[in-house]
């Protein structure tokens, strides 16, 4: 079973005070972590790729914990999340799908059992490719104020034999959210949707 070989880690923390409207008393925090790893299946077609999912679990946990730390260390502060992957050109989009289970599992674990599906996106791309990682509320996917996206990427990755896996977390709604819909304080938070 292939190990996870990490070449680099890029973190980013956004602190948003306003976007032209009234400055928030508490700025919105948005954290992302992107890890560039070797793609053990690059360069050829491999039928059975699932063993690598198990290897990715510790990486997912490490990344999820670092996001919570970046947001102040209290998992209860986290209200939104998302995940994504950029597969280098020697691999296939399907390799990015290996990140679904370990990335999602890790964030739910660290956040103490979040209910909503973790929104995700993936693509194949070369160094410098940017990925807009979708964000939704951790307990109720329909919370409109928390729909967002965070851009991740790094100038020198993923190389062709690599993939870059991302997790993101936020502390709340868009800074001037006022587009209506289900509000965070109106959810039941049991089915992951409403």
């Amino acid at each position, binding site marked *: 079973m292939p190990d996870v070989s990490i070449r680099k*880690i890029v*973190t980013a923390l956004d602190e948003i005070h306003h976007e032209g409207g009234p400055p928030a008393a508490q700025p919105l925090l948005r954290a992302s972590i992107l890890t560039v790893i070797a793609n053990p299946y690059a360069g050829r077609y491999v039928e059975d790729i699932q063993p690598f999912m198990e290897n990715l679990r510790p990486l997912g946990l490490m990344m999820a914990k670092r996001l919570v730390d970046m947001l102040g260390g209290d998992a209860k502060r986290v209200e939104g999340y998302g995940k994504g992957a950029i597969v280098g050109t020697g691999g296939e989009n399907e390799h990015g799908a290996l990140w679904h289970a370990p990335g999602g599992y890790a964030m739910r674990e660290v956040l103490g059992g979040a209910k909503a599906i973790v929104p995700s996106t993936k693509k194949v791309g070369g160094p410098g490719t940017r990925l807009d990682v979708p964000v939704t509320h951790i307990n109720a996917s329909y919370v409109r104020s928390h729909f967002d996206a965070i*851009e991740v990427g790094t100038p020198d990755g993923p190389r062709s034999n690599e993939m870059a896996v991302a997790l993101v977390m936020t502390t709340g709604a868009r800074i001037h959210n006022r587009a209506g819909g289900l509000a965070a304080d109106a959810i039941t938070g049991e089915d992951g949707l409403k």
Partner: protein
Amino acid sequence: MTAKIRKLTVWVEETLQEMGQEISPPTRKAVAAAVIENPFAGHYENDLSELMEIGAELGGLLGRKCVAALGIEPNAAESYGKAAMVGENGELEHAAAILHPRLGAPLREAVEKGAALVPSSKKMGGPGQVLDVPLGHKDAAYVRSHFDGVEVRLCDAPRADEILVAVAVTDSGRPLPRVGGLRHDEAQGSDGLR
């Protein structure tokens, strides 16, 4: 604070491997960026002292953010750099007013010492544009292993009436330096050059 900050972002990039070689400890670069309102957008102003004051504020704020993101003592910082990108309703001289007269002293306080010139770059630009922040050793500009750069990019800034200001701090040089020249451990650090 004179600066009207819309958002702050702090990136950290850690390199654990390069060309199959383990980098131990990993090399690490931090960049902190502030997106501020340009008080002189849309009109010619001869006296740029307000931007100079903003530069002094941001040199300290962004320098401390980098050091905090690296989790190091200030004197463990090894290289630094600064850059600004002015949105389309401003002028290049606005970047110069922020970067050159007063930003350096509080940045040097944040990294303790800093005998060397802070390398810089500037340009006009719009949202999503890349700004390359040059890096040089903070006490001895000729230390060859620490000549480097780091990219900054925000998908939503600078808007026309904004300026993106970035400060970068590292606790290390390039991952596998082997092109000779003055070394970090040979630097005197008294004249800022060697």
